[in-house]
């Protein structure tokens, strides 16, 4: 197994404080059939979603990814199979109460226009009959968490916010009652590309602290690679074609469907997952003084992009603004050869 998921999963971040960390979700032979249709909307899906990870359901439209997600909080009832959250069968629970324990974010955001931002965020805590003071504190905490100044935003109304701000509120609302599990259906799909990238990064930073178990639906494979600790690729037949880490899917797709879905440039995408930190840096020389700079947090994809953009074979790596070494094109290529060897070894195993 490639270890690069560690970047995303190991730091059991400080500051998680009182927040409830994620719990595992298990889908066991789950199917959904609508009466009068020949093929199943979801066909015998089994998967284990580890606690505290982001699992992406990705696939073409009609592959049942959203249906699968919506069965977890019983917005859709499975026809057969069982789903357990932290060992408890969801079908044995009261559906309304169950949903209050699961954060829910949708593409259309669905903020209620007649309620202020604070009222929107506090909806689930109020349904759970939290004390007023606790609810108010929580609203401020959540707004700060998603980067909205509480004093400025709590009394505004959704229509006074931009799309990106609205989706931040959507995330804050889903997190308000501190659910261990979050379901997110193309949460950043309606936001422009620049804001989407920012929201994705901010959300990953938040998740780094909170370690919720997140089921995330998207049709965008690049988003899946960026956001996912694991990715389940669903095929046209509403079955799981491959369920693995992004690295594995990119380096060894299970079949032709997955390969096609990953699309061209799998190797380049693979480099998006490799941090510069994994490369041994060279010492900085005088010759590098004029070379372009790249932050240590950058991915090899960023490095390569910068090298091509500036037509340079060597870049200076900076950490907190100070040069700490340099990286050359050969280093990147060496890492690519290593990755290929790893993938071959895995396939041989």
């Amino acid at each position: 197994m490639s270890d690069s998921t560690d970047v995303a999963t190991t730091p059991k971040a400080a500051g998680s404080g009182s927040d409830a960390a994620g719990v595992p979700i298990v889908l066991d032979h789950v199917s959904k059939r609508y009466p009068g249709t020949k093929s199943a909307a979801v066909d015998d899906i089994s998967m284990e979603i580890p606690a505290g990870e982001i699992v992406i359901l990705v696939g073409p439209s009609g592959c049942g990814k959203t249906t699968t997600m919506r069965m977890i909080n019983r917005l859709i009832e499975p026809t057969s199979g069982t789903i357990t959250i932290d060992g408890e069968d969801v079908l044995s629970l009261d559906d309304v109460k169950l949903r209050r324990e699961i954060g829910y974010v949708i593409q259309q955001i669905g903020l209620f226009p007649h309620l202020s931002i604070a009222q929107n965020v506090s909806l689930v805590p109020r349904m759970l009959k939290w004390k007023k003071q606790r609810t108010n504190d929580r609203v401020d905490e959540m707004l700060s968490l998603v980067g909205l100044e509480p004093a400025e935003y709590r009394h505004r109304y959704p229509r006074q916010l931009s799309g990106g701000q609205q989706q931040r509120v959507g995330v804050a609302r889903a997190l308000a009652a501190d659910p261990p599990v979050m379901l997110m259906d193309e949460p950043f799909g309606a936001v422009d590309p620049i804001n989407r990238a920012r929201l994705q990064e901010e959300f990953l930073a938040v998740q780094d602290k909170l370690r919720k178990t997140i089921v995330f639906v998207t049709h965008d494979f690049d988003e899946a690679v960026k956001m996912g600790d694991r990715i389940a690729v669903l095929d046209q037949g509403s079955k799981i074609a491959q369920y693995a880490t992004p690295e594995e899917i990119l380096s060894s797709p299970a079949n032709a469907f997955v390969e096609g879905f990953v699309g061209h440039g799998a190797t380049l995408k693979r480099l998006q997952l490799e941090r510069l930190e994994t490369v041994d840096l060279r010492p900085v020389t005088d010759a590098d003084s004029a070379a372009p700079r790249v932050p240590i947090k950058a991915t090899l994809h960023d490095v390569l992009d910068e090298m091509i953009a500036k037509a340079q074979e060597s870049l200076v790596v900076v950490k907190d603004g100070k040069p700490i070494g340099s990286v050359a094109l050969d280093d990147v290529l060496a890492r690519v050869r290593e990755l290929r060897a790893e993938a071959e070894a895995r396939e041989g195993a």
Partner: protein
Amino acid sequence: MGNGGDVQLAFGDGLSFRQWVDAYQDDLIFYTRQHALLAFYCILAAAVLAVLLAVLVYRSSRLSGLAINAVSVGFTLPSIALFGIVIPVLGRNIGSVFPVVVLYSLLPALRNAIVGLQSVDPAMLDAARGMGMSRFRMLWQIELPLAWPVILAGLRVSAQLAVGIVAIGAIVYDVGLGQYAFSALANLGSANTGNEALACVLFVAAIGIAFDLAFMLVRRFTTPRGLRV
């Protein structure tokens, strides 16, 4: 025949309109208030019924289609004929005016309530359900507030209808300003029939305008702030 020398608005041999109003001031005030009050109660009843019925049918496209078609058909019935049907059943009393006026007021209110509830963005409902709202809570906290401006617009039309049909109700029972109109029709050509007819028209219109202004205020104060910004 005294003429005030100012506005000359006399019909036949009667008093000038101003003199007539002065002479029958007490009656006029009484009937205007009675008319307005009866219309108000009818609107209130229609509002409650419309929202209740709409809540019952709006989720079923078949039932709500049926209700909206019934509303369209209802509008084509002449109210005077409906009063004619009601008299043999309920007799000539206030109790037979009330249901007919409520029925007419119900029509626009019901149609708007159904359309208002149905036009709530499905994404709102998905979000509400997904975050664990019960059916009742969704209706009370999300759907009704969001549909409220549309419901209120329907009630505003209902109010105008109610004021007009209460006037026709005077054919069944001696109530409201409509009595002046029917008295004028019955005694056409006699003294003061013109004054009676004019009084009916003007004061009914005044009640209608008053209701409309009241609705503007109600809308101003009951529309959630987030829907106004």
